[in-house]
């Protein structure tokens, strides 16, 4: 009785899980189909497998330079992630360890601003970027993205929990505060920084609204924007757009396989998403 019930639950849940990833599988399979087969689907599995979509996408076509968008995405996301890690850990060290005057109050202000909805910043940040002449450059996607308070908040919470005695021992041994930060605090904060890094990378990689508003010329697009606008102008070439979508998603899927637990747990404990 008990086992029959748990078997039924198992079957239902596994079926549901497969249903959830079915669209991803359909996306992957479709990218191996010819365009004509996409529009008249006789079967989900391609009848004639082809690599032509991948070949076209990677051949750097002028009207849709996917490779360029991919490189832009890699550059923007990596830079944002590195900067967020450096800025947040430095600020957290200043607040929790160096006890910079007003640091506690500053953290309070940072936490309050985390509750302000992102849409409030869209118009004024656009204007500020235009003052700096940063619109339509990678800086528009990188610098504002490092200003969010989540990283500092998270690193502060983590650093507070590191026992002080280790650092004190290093200080007594003649280590400078900067040395303590580099050789003691940073290595000990590695788990928190890994989570923060993954989290920041995914958010930046998938960001759509900021590129949409701040970027103008096609050569400066990131992947999500490029894919969406390409789809907008060639609305029936599903095989090609799905191929790019697959290529844009693969890095995250691979990352997810390695860091599955951290990703799910950090997202579900902070409740932060998108």
């Amino acid at each position: 009785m008990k086992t029959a019930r748990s078997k039924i639950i198992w079957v239902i849940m596994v079926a549901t899980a497969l249903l959830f990833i079915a669209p991803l599988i359909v996306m992957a399979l479709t990218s191996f189909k010819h365009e004509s087969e996409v529009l008249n689907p006789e079967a989900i599995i391609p009848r004639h497998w082809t690599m032509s979509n991948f070949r076209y996408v990677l051949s750097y076509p002028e009207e849709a330079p996917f490779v360029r968008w991919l490189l832009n995405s890699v550059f923007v996301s990596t830079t944002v992630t590195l900067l967020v890690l450096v800025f947040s850990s430095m600020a957290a060290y200043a607040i929790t360890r160096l006890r910079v005057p007003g640091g506690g109050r500053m953290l309070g202000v940072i936490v309050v601003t985390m509750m302000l909805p992102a849409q409030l910043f869209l118009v004024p940040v656009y204007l500020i970027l235009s003052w700096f002449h940063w619109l339509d450059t990678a800086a528009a996607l990188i610098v504002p993205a490092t200003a969010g308070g989540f990283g500092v908040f998270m690193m502060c919470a983590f650093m507070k929990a590191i026992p002080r005695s280790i650092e004190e021992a290093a200080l007594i041994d003649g280590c400078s505060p900067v040395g303590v930060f580099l050789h003691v605090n940073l290595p000990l904060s590695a788990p928190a920084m890994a989570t923060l890094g993954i989290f920041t990378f995914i958010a930046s990689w998938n960001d759509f609204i900021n590129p949409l508003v701040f970027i103008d010329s096609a050569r400066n697009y990131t992947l999500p924007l490029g894919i969406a606008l390409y789809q907008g102008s060639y609305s029936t070439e599903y095989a090609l757009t799905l191929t790019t979508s697959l290529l844009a998603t693969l890095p995250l899927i691979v990352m997810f396989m390695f860091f599955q637990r951290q990703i799910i747990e950090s997202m579900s404990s902070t409740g932060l998403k998108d």
Partner: protein
Amino acid sequence: MTHRRSQNLVGYLFMLPYGAVFLTFIVLPFVVSLVLSFLEYDLTSRHPATFIGFRNFREALFEDRFFWKAVGATFQYVALMIPAQLVLAMLLALGMNAMTRGKQTVRALLFMPGLLSIAVTAILWQWFYNEEFGLFNHLLKLVHLPGVPWLSNLHVAMPSVVLMTLWWTVGGSAAVLLTGLQQIPAQITEAAALDGANGWRGFWMITLPMLKPVLLFMVVMNTIGGFQMFTQSLLLTTGGPEMATRGVVQLIYDTAFGDFRLGYGAAISWLLFIMIAGFSFLQFRIIRRFSE
């Protein structure tokens, strides 16, 4: 004291990089947005800034029927999304919690759609929803059912947007609830089961009250997110048909970056912010009342 002073100096230097971006891209925009909302600021005209007091707010609240239409669409989205998300996430979490094997794998698979960029998600679903050669209508045809005008019908379009968003986000919510369920001490559920509170009764009497903090947090966060619904409808329907799926954030986007009326766009974002803040406050109050 010189030691203290030099430590402060190092502290300020460590604060500097984040402090600079925080001031430039959080504090300054906040102020700029506030000032903008009282200005007629038209990027296309020669003399951009004129102070016009509360006229932007008056225009939105009393003259602009598109504003109220967008507010209506936003509320419709929230009203459909939040309950559906809650119930579905709860069912999935309970299901996973009852699994003896494969729990982690199912959790990961349910979570996976959330890894996709919204752009990728929308493109995929736009194809599924396509009336002529989309997957859904193709499947319906296989079982001899008529096709559904997923994105072109006034009453179906918003539910279609919600359905796609559910697929995209519900796995994350289910993971949150699963974490909550696993934190309920086994002794409590066992003791309750001995007292006859198992199954449905146990869920209502024990599980749900124990999950209340997580549920409260989730509902409030999802509502805040729901009020900011934008990209889904922009990419799926561009706000159509007849603006039925255009939420307030898309109105802000269209106003500021389509018509280049930055002042009016900023004013609408403040109205939306006030709406979100008021609504979250109300939710906190109501749920706290119920939980006492």
